């Protein structure tokens, strides 16, 4: 029997009925959920004459409502622990990677040696309801420590050790990271916050985790070959999980795409010019995007633009479809993977693309597990593992393999009795049951591992991880099996009692249910806040319909920065490119840009990608804005102390001008940016400075201007008339919006 046979299934098969699900919330039963049949039986009969009484009508209505809720619960609120486990691995890995990425910028952006000191940000917080643990860490050393702690938190969350605790700490970590430097926040950061927030409410530690692993070792201590061949399938690891969190995590994903479509109402999207413009944003693009824009003609980018919009539109349906999940969810995951991989490799958008892929892991339904299982089963071959019957080490290895063998492709056998003294059988050998072929040593290891889920890839991970010494290691273990057994204190049967979970007392069950209701109530609250936030924040919603969020609702979402405004490059992509360049003069008269360490580049029209990371490019893009003028003071302080960072006194800056260097992206069909200009954001001249003999006097200070100003040409540009395919596309968008 396959692993998914006795778990909840989607449409078209054995979707669990309501009574089946009553035990599905976490580990404890739900309050008795009435099935539709039971409810129908409770409805009183009609009055003579056929007209229902008001009571009957009311009951019918309430029954319909209950049926609807049950339908929603069965179709959207159930998640397999396996799905949650995969979700945790992917999100945890991305969190570790993202935290490491930010750690690389610790000095510049997160320490008091950088461009925004903690005391300045606390004095002038970027927003209300701003809380970040990073604010408590000032010096670079302290910041390194907190980054190390948070990386560890993410790592432990990823591997599922004390999962609940570390999922909460991971949430604190990501929201703190965002709140410490709100200036570089983009939709990606919000996605990270949401994805990790939902993880706190999902059963992420039930499968594929250290917690689950340790628990299974405590609860099940196999002592015979028969017990090895009988897989341990505890309820806590296999029962589907029911919670509003499952609905929210899926629904929110659909909402992201929905608003991304409806907000993209600009003519550049409709006329298919978006990809062209986006590919010419040198501050954002990667080298691959530069290659793409230079190689492919303009007309090829138009279908790509529409394809992006269409994909996002159909994703909403695929994600939310309650039926045919086998197809729709698979298509949704593939669509998200392709869409965001292309975003991720072309643009420097930070965590957005990768975390959206991570988010899509929540879409894995039992049907997808069945598909994956079938696919892997076709690739993998069953093997018989014959272990040394006298070696506790071999037996312990079999216990490990039994826990990894989710597809049950392994069968265990004891080695035959050997009468010859001092002769020992192979520690482990593998046998192909069909052909009878026997594998020993490293070949046996390979055969066994490849029969495990993911073992085809895992085998090579192990080979590389052991630096090619796998063969000698296995050989050593086989030779020294007795010594290793003693060293690790192994025995057959394993030591200690099986700690089978005792049945819960009614009191504990009630307390657990109380906690569950609290959790669901919290989720309802978050859902209400999020819905209002989505209405208030998205451009597609008319102004009159946007509610004013009460303070407590704002606090609920703004502290963790779980916003709901979705509209990347909406309604139109920006058509001007820009970045910050600093023309600084050192004590010894050199012109240098402290951000690059090189001669300042004040012309970006010839750029083939600026090579800036997301954090820097977003910081540059935001520091130019008038609303962030207040944050230029710490930037100035940083530049004045730049020589302390380099450690060279002659690097002291006696003057600097911080420019926003801007150029218009090339119009469709052209390749070169134009209209390069520089706008001074900040200037500084050291008071009392006298140039050394032979050095020119300091240049006059440029006038500081607003870099917010909309390009008048762009503002007055008339959209091109639509015809042909664009017109057809616009009609489709119109229909979709309707």
């Amino acid at each position: 029997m396959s692993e998914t046979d006795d778990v909840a299934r989607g449409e078209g098969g054995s979707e669990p009925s309501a009574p089946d699900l009553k035990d599905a919330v976490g580990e404890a039963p739900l309050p008795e959920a009435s099935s539709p049949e039971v409810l129908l039986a409770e409805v009183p009969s009609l009055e003579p004459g056929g007209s229902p009484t008001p009571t009957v009508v009311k009951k019918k209505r309430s029954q319909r409502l209950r049926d609807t809720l049950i339908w929603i619960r069965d179709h959207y609120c159930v998640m397999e622990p396996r799905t949650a486990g995969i979700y945790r691995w992917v999100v945890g890995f991305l969190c570790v990677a993202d935290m490491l990425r930010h750690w690389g910028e610790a000095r510049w952006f997160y320490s008091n040696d950088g461009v925004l000191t903690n005391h300045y940000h606390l004095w002038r917080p970027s927003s209300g309801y701003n809380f970040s643990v990073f604010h408590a860490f000032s010096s670079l050393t302290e910041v390194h420590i907190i980054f190390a702690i948070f990386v560890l938190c993410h790592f432990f969350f990823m591997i599922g050790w004390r999962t609940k605790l570390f999922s909460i700490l991971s949430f604190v970590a990501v929201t703190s990271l965002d709140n410490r430097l709100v200036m570089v926040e983009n939709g990606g950061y919000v996605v990270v916050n949401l994805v990790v927030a939902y993880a706190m409410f999902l059963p992420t530690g039930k499968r594929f985790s250290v917690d689950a692993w340790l628990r299974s070792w405590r609860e099940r201590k196999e002592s015979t070959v028969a017990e090895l061949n009988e897989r341990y399938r505890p309820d806590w690891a296999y029962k589907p999980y029911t919670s509003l969190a499952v609905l929210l995590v899926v629904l929110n994903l659909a909402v992201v795409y929905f608003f991304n479509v409806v907000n993209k109402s600009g003519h550049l999207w409709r006329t298919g010019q978006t990809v062209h413009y986006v590919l010419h944003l040198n501050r954002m693009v990667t080298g691959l995007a530069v290659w793409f824009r230079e190689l492919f003609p303009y007309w090829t980018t138009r279908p790509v633009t529409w394809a992006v919009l269409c994909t996002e539109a159909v994703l909403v349906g695929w994600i939310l479809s309650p039926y045919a999940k086998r197809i729709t969810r698979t298509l949704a995951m593939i669509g998200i993977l392709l869409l965001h991989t292309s975003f991720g490799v072309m643009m420097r958008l930070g965590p957005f693309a990768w975390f959206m892929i991570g988010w899509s892991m929540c879409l894995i339904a039992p049907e997808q597990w069945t598909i994956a299982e079938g696919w892997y089963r076709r690739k993998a071959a069953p093997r018989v593992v014959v272990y040394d019957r006298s070696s506790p080490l071999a037996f312990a290895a079999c216990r490990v393999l039994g826990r990894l063998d989710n597809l049950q492709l392994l069968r265990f056998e004891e080695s035959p009795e050997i009468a010859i003294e001092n002769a020992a059988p192979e520690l482990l050998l593998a046998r192909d049951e069909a052909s009878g072929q026997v594998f020993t040593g490293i070949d046996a290891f390979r055969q066994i591992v490849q029969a495990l889920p993911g073992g085809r890839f895992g085998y090579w991970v192990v080979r590389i991880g052991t630096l090619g010494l796998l063969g000698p290691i296995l050989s050593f273990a086989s030779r020294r099996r007795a010594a290793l057994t003693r060293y690790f204190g192994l025995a057959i049967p394993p030591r200690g009692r099986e700690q089978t979970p005792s049945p819960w007392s009614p009191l504990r069950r009630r307390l657990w249910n109380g906690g569950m209701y609290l959790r669901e109530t919290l989720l309802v609250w978050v859902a209400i806040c999020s819905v209002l936030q989505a209405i208030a924040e998205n451009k597609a919603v008319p102004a009159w319909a946007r509610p004013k969020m009460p303070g407590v609702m704002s606090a609920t979402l703004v502290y963790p920065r779980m916003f709901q405004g979705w509209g990347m490059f909406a309604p139109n992509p920006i058509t001007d490119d820009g970045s910050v360049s600093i023309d600084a003069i050192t004590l010894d008269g050199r012109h240098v840009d402290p951000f690059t360490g090189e001669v300042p580049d004040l012309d970006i029209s010839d750029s083939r990608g600026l090579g800036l990371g997301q954090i820097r490019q977003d910081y540059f893009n935001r520091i130019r804005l008038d609303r962030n003028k207040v944050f230029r003071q710490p930037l100035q302080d940083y530049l004045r102390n730049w020589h302390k960072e380099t450690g060279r006194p002659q690097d002291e800056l006696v003057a600097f001008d911080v420019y926003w260097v801007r150029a218009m992206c090339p119009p469709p069909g052209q390749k070169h940016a134009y209209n390069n200009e520089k706008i001074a954001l900040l200037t500084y001249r050291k008071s009392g400075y006298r140039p050394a003999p032979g050095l020119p006097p300091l240049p006059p200070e440029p006038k500081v201007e607003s870099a917010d100003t909309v390009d008048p040409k762009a503002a007055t540009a008339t959209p091109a008339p639509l015809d042909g395919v664009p017109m057809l596309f616009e009609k489709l968008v119109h229909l979709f919006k309707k």
Partner: protein
Amino acid sequence: MGLVLIYDLLRRFRYIKEFYSNDGVLPNHNHLFNLHGAQVWSLLHAFSTEGESTFAFALILVAYTLFAVGYQTRFFHVVSVVALVSLTGRNVLLENAGNYAAIALLAFTAFLPCGSRFSIDSMRAALDARDEKTARALNDRPTRTDEELDAQRLPGWAPTSIAAFAVLAQIAIIYLATALQQKGAWRDGTALYYGLNVERWVSRGGASVRNLSPALLALWTHALYVAEWGIPALVLVPVGFRYTRTGAAVLSAFYALTLGLLFSFGLYAWTLLAASLLLLPKELWTGIENVPRASRLRTIIYDADCGVCLWLSRVTKHADLRHHLTFQGNDDVAELLITGKNGVVERVPAPKGLTPEVVLGTVVVADRHGNTFTKSRAVSEVIGALPLGWTVAWIFRIPGLSSLFDLGYDAIATRRQGISVLMGKEACGIAEHHAAAEEPAEPPGPGTDEEVAPAVRNARTGIGFLRELGVGVVFAAMLAQTTAQNQLPYKLAQPKWLAAVATWPRMMAKWDVLTPEPPKDDEIFVIDGQTKAGRAIDTLTGHDPILDPGAMRGSGLGQLWGDYLTRMHEKEWLDFQRAFRDYLAKGGPGWDEKTGDDQIIGLDAYWLKQPIPAPGSPRAPDSVTREKLFTHSRGGKTAITPEKMMPLIRPDLNLKR
């Protein structure tokens, strides 16, 4: 120590707005800015508003409480260290030797097995280790040898550690360093008198005893001085622990209680009082544990068919340190079970009041004189037999209240079967006693030392080595810091990294309480503010400005405000004054009126000084001098009243206590 931490936190709770939020005297950004990169760290810097800080305090309270009751003790011990460091580091103007002592002792004891006894952890472990089902099992109390206990301890839980030495040494060092720096008034016996006349320090209790005869205060001073020298000497004596360590603990408790009751030194005295318990020798514990007092011996007759009653009996058994209690089921009351002199349970004739009818309706407790107690009185007797139970037991005997407790008892007793079912306990199945259940279960942990695998042993050794290394480094840092911060005859080399180990967690080791001697001047901080209606007001107290320190009679603002205001007038803390002025402009702890005639329209800040007369002499009211620290807006009301004007001086700002 957990209780001391909770007391300290609750004390700070009422000052969250003033000292820990951005609406107070030192916003987090201002503090961080003024620290100029000093090695000060606090997680509370991340909390800005009063609400956020209150939330953080609530979390700290939870951590302290769980540490105090010993739930996940090691974890919450470390969290408590972090919390205390954060509380200290958030506003360094409030810290004093009490913070340094508390952090140091808390940090060192984090390496010791504080959860092994008198904790929820140990209670749970004891309940898990043996599932008693019968009265016989309840009365069976095998004692384990030290070797067996050691073998069961998890890595990092052995009490034999450098940390144990470090704790003792730290306590000794605190007293020794203090004594070494004291002179003058400590030698002539006037120190306590002068100390009690410093309004910023004295508590209400201290104010009430400062007029005792000078001879008595001199005697008390000498006793304190002797205690300071005696404690380190007794601690360091390597023999006769039963007497030396006990003597040190008693002296330490005397010293701590004196300072705690007479002065407002914050954590200092109460930390030392808690530390006194660390000095109690093993011999003393052995003399208490398993040694019952005849007058407290009791027999509990519990409902043998009630699961929750059995569970309560098991909990009581493990809390019964001195083995005062003997357990007996109500299914066999023909005779009474008592524990004999050698710990053997014996049967004696049942007292008159012990009838089958009585034991069906209530728990019965019998003493050795044939007296029986029921209901809440029985509960009182049981609690009274437990360690320190007498502090609570008397409440159940108060006339009137005892009737209420009886009602409560009845309400629970009649529902005990239901409660048993609710808690998953057996309700009526206890009678099915089976011998196997009475056998002690396999103890948790790896078992005896022979059963520990070499891999586990190596891991333990590695962890133990790291632990000892950690303690060693922290201890070395504390030693070096102590010699650097105090006027001691010896100075140890203190490399930067070692100084950082002590400085980051605010283990500043400045043992300067009442050193070198209490000041001969009484100094106070007074705000002379005026309201829109023209009323003179001290916004710190909410009353008229008191310009005579001698008239305050111990009605100071407490340690936090005392230390803060003292520093406010010192030159090295001038950078922090601006935030204080901004705060005062909006009101103060005693004045929060921001509108109408009561709003503050100007104020002056003064540092008043009055010489403390020699013992037995009265204060001279006209000897008060004032130092004007700053003026806000229109200034104060009193300052413009000629008859109340005092001579203005500008003495050295670097005044020492």
